[in-house]
């Protein structure tokens, strides 16, 4: 087994396993035929059709809003939980708290969704809030489970962070709060960005929990796509998916470029 040919073949197989489905989807989004699997010629008509579909566009906009809001809420809560877990090494119920923070990660979505639904129904009848199910309930549900993931990401960044840097700031006259905003926050910023993006993706991705806690008139994009696919895959879904892939790819590309730019340039005198 020589490395000369093994590595390229393994890489080709691996990458085609990962990306062949996506590539075929992108190719078929430009298919002229109404039948998804039969190629009959190049056309961009499904893109045009997509932009004239108010249901699809509305769902996409709703999903983006939900993802942004819930990722932001989850970021704040997750960071606070991570700071508590890393900075305060021993407080009553720390083990319980740490277990409960990460529990939503291992909980099946069906159960999370169902329990959320039951909670919202009970709250509505007892407190009158949240009134009905819609965007608000989806945001709350997504924030809670995204928080668990963000907490883990931020926690690991905080854990390998030299505490004496914060002490140095306090030593120079900064109050603990000031230290957090001047020193801690900038240093953990990369973890916060990736945490937020993770929360955003998780929310954009979610079908199961959203199906439980959404109400009439508040279908997210995955819900709309899923209901459409149930009636047979239509080529405009391919077009939509291709657009999403393009946006994500651009985002990843920009993030990588920014990272490369800010990489330490090791200049030694």
């Amino acid at each position, binding site marked *: 087994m020589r490395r000369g040919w093994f590595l390229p073949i393994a890489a080709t197989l691996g990458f085609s396993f990962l990306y062949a489905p996506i590539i075929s989807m992108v190719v078929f989004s430009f298919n002229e035929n109404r039948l998804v699997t039969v190629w009959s010629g190049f056309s961009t008509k499904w893109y045009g059709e997509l932009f004239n579909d108010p249901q699809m566009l509305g769902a996409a906009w709703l999903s983006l809003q939900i993802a942004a809001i819930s990722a932001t809420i989850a970021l704040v809560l997750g960071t606070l939980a991570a700071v508590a877990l890393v900075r305060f090494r021993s407080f009553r119920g720390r083990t319980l708290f740490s277990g409960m923070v990460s529990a939503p990660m291992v909980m099946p979505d069906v159960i999370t969704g169902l329990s959320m639904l039951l909670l919202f129904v009970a709250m509505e009848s007892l407190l009158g809030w949240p009134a009905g199910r819609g965007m608000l309930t989806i945001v709350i549900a997504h924030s809670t489970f995204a928080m668990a993931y963000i907490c883990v990401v931020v926690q690991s960044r905080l854990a390998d962070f*030299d505490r004496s840097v914060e002490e*140095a*700031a*306090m*030593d*120079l006259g900064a109050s603990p709060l*000031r230290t957090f905003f*001047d020193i801690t926050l900038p240093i953990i910023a990369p973890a916060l960005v990736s945490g937020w993006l993770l929360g955003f993706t998780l929310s954009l991705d979610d079908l199961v929990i959203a199906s439980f806690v959404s109400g009439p008139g508040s279908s997210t994009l995955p819900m709309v796509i899923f209901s459409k696919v149930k009636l047979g895959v239509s080529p405009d879904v391919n077009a939509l998916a291709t657009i999403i892939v393009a946006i994500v790819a651009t985002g990843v590309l920009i993030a990588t470029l920014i990272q490369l730019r800010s990489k330490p340039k090791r200049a030694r005198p």
Partner: protein
Amino acid sequence: MAKKPLIAADTRPWRDPSATPFVRIRNITKKFGDVAAVHDVSLDIFKSELFCLLGGSGSGKSTLLRMLAGFETPTSGTIEIDGQDMTHVAPYNRPVNMMFQSYALFPHMNVEQNIAYGLKRDGLPKPEIADRVAELLTLVKLQDYGARKPHQLSGGQRQRVALARALAKRPKLLLLDEPLGALDKKLREETQFELVKIQETLGVTFIVVTHDQEEAMSLATRIGVMNQGEIAMIGEPTDIYEFPNSKFVAGFIGSVNMVEGVVTEDEPGHVRLRSAEMGCDIYVGHGVECAPDQILSWAIRPEKVMLSRDKPDAPFDANVTKGVVEDIGYLGDMSVYQVLLDSGKRLRVTQTNTVRGNPDAITWDEPVYVTWNDTSGSVLTV
């Protein structure tokens, strides 16, 4: 490199019983759970001193320093700085700055911003901050590095930035935690010199924590040797080396030959010990508080022992014994001899190599006489 005394009374206030200490530590104890990291330490430090806290790991020296900075609260006892009780004052309200062992530079700020951080917290006007930063950069010879980020600097440069940042607020007291620990040997020696120079120029009181005895000896005006959370001895470097007060201090600083002996003569002017380990009597030329037949320890530094081929005079019929050279370590400037005494005890003796390539030097397996002056050793009761 240690501070050059100008006028004894000026530079050695600890010798003046009426002098007011600048830092007054009174009966400080710090417990972590049931373990006392620092136990009942009392210490006076005077203005413009360069005081070294010397000890092994776990001796409590860093905990003591962190209590001075305000990062740890003492379990009991008080800390007074410049006449004010600081025991429970938060670190950001103390007139004290610290230089951290890891330097703890802010990685997302450049050198200038790092140095200016404390000044900004004080709300100084911008032009004044700029002036002060420039002044400090000159002081630590980093004028051209103001715009660099910490990761673009070498270890020695980072150390100097950390020093400049700690000095920026013109603290009354500067705490340094292993300031030279992360530097290589050559750089450390140069930096030691710089550190003393800066300290002398600014007149700031320095408290340095170190585990490196050479560093402590060459930097300090006084050294506090710590052992297991307690101060074992406080004194000037020469006191600590030449007149240790206990077996621990004698063994911790430098190398030493230590033997036990029984008091046979106890006069006000001298003491005679009979030591089976040395195979001879030990005559000590000064009075010691002891009783006849008491078993004492006696310690002598390797460089204070002399070797000779011919039998030397023994004025008190003591302080001469015999042995065989078992091993020689040639270090260039001096040689370390390991002499096996007839009693079976091994002695460490150092001799300065004053003659170049001396063909007549004492060599392996040679029988030798070992002798020392009656004032060279220390009698240690504890």
